[in-house]
């Protein structure tokens, strides 16, 4: 298929339809409204369903119902709307249902702003709702990768019966880049024999549920969830890294921030600096192991985010005291420039290596 130029938000919709998603439940919120608008236009053409729910809470619960009924289903929102969805996300994770949730992040807390931000890293990677659960969280850096991760994300969700979150920001949602739609790697996807489809009088009732009143049963259930998360950690880490074996300093950044960092790194290389990059694509599971490959001569790891320092916690866990960890962030919709990042890289290299970090 030839490349087409698409806006990130619309590309999400096209990718979902390409992946066989026929159900979308959502609620308008900037900066992702082009996605529900696209779905409203396109779903009827494929006999699918677009439904504008009365709230984000209702939308995620419609997803909960549709996922339980065995469908490939998606919802999307932006930060404050994703907060409203947390209840449903927790139930979906607890009941072990597959679905795709898109968060096109904006500045926070509260109503915040509508400009690009990465302020929901904690919420996304730590669960967000109540209980010990995890979402698979994928953070694309360009529109092509956004499309690829949406398509693969549905498969990951089905394979593990787990919600998958695509974490983007207003910039990737609003920008246009060329995309082509490719088949993802082949996975063995289990039959959805647990779905609520009516018994037809031929089997015992299927029950979609996250309630376990007996403590022993709930503990067993949680252990099983943890086993599943362990398998995801083993199989689904995605990371891009660049020049980390030879770098004097390594930048850690994800999503759109990482591509700004790349511009900064190529500027710095022209000036003779050796700068590496680790770009987590899966934020959960986080690519902790990748940081072990950083050469011993490295003077530090600089985390760059459009927030006040959230992924930096994971970077510190990954670095585990080997190097000082520095942080630079912009918030509120302010986007760091390549020059700013380049300056921070230089500053970080000048810090006396006494193990002190932020």
């Amino acid at each position, binding site marked *: 298929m030839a490349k087409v*130029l698409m806006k990130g938000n619309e590309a999400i919709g096209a990718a979902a339809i390409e992946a066989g998603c026929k159900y979308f439940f959502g609620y308008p919120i900037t900066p992702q409204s082009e996605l529900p608008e696209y779905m409203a236009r396109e779903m009827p053409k494929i006999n699918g369903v677009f439904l504008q729910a009365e709230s984000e809470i209702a939308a995620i619960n419609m997803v909960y119902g549709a996922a339980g009924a065995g469908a490939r289903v998606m919802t999307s929102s932006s930060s404050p709307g994703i907060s409203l969805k947390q209840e449903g996300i927790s139930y979906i994770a607890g009941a072990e249902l597959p679905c795709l949730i898109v968060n096109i992040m904006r500045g926070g807390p509260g109503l915040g702003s*509508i400009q690009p931000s990465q302020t929901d890293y904690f919420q996304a990677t730590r669960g967000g709702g109540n209980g010990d659960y995890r979402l698979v969280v994928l953070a694309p850096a360009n529109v092509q990768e956004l499309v690829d991760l949406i398509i693969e994300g549905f498969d990951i969700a089905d394979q593990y019966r787990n919600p998958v979150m695509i974490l983007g920001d207003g910039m990737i949602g*609003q920008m246009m*880049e060329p995309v082509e739609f490719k088949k993802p790697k082949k996975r063995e996807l289990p039959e959805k024999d647990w779905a609520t489809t009516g018994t037809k009088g031929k089997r015992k009732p299927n029950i979609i549920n996250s309630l376990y009143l007996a403590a022993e049963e709930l503990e067993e259930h949680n252990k099983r969830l943890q086993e599943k998360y362990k398998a995801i950690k083993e199989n689904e880490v995605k990371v891009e890294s660049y020049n980390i074996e030879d770098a004097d300093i390594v930048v850690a950044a994800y999503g759109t921030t990482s*591509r*700004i960092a790349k511009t900064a790194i190529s500027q710095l290389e022209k000036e003779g600096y050796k700068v590496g990059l680790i770009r987590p694509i899966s934020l959960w599971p986080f690519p902790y192991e990748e940081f072990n490959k950083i050469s011993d001569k490295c003077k530090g790891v600089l985390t760059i985010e459009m927030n006040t320092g959230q992924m930096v916690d994971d970077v510190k866990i990954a670095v585990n005291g080997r190097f000082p960890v520095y942080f630079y962030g912009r918030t509120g919709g302010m986007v760091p*420039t390549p020059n700013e990042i380049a300056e921070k890289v230089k500053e970080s290299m000048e810090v006396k290596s006494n193990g002190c970090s932020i």
Partner: protein
Amino acid sequence: MEERIVVAGFGGQGVMAIGQLLTYAGMIENRHVSWLPSYGPEMRGGTANCNVIVSDEAIGAPVIEEASAVIVMNKPSLDKFEDNVIKGGKLLINSSLIDKKAVRNDIDIYYIPANEIASELGNDRVANMVILGAYLEATKLVKEESVLEAFTKVFGENKAHLLPLNKEAIEKGMEAAKEQEKAMV
């Protein structure tokens, strides 16, 4: 080679369309491209703008700080973006709506009376295509044919009948830029 273009004006002047046409044309010519709009309340103020990058290599930051070219369709946009042009870069000014001169003397400046030319063509709305034509002449970034091929992709087949008018507007803009270049020499 990486061309970083900021196109700015007020809503309704077709600045987003200029950007999309350049982006699509770049894609047709197998270059790496990105288009990033300003969005939200800013669009309702003095300047709507978009950042377009056309590059031979994968694109890093889609946000443009240092533009190799800036196209401004109204005065607030000139005030806002003149300083973003890199030394030796190009600044295209819609002189129909901007009565002041640019301050910079280290860049190539084109004063294109885009609205007047468009009016002469019988449709004020193609002013954006006039200045796009001037830009194409000034930079040779992409071929005119690529932009025309992009036209129906961006605006839809049902706008194909407007292609001759828009082609004429682009070519008038090219002529205007050539005139300006004579003056520069």
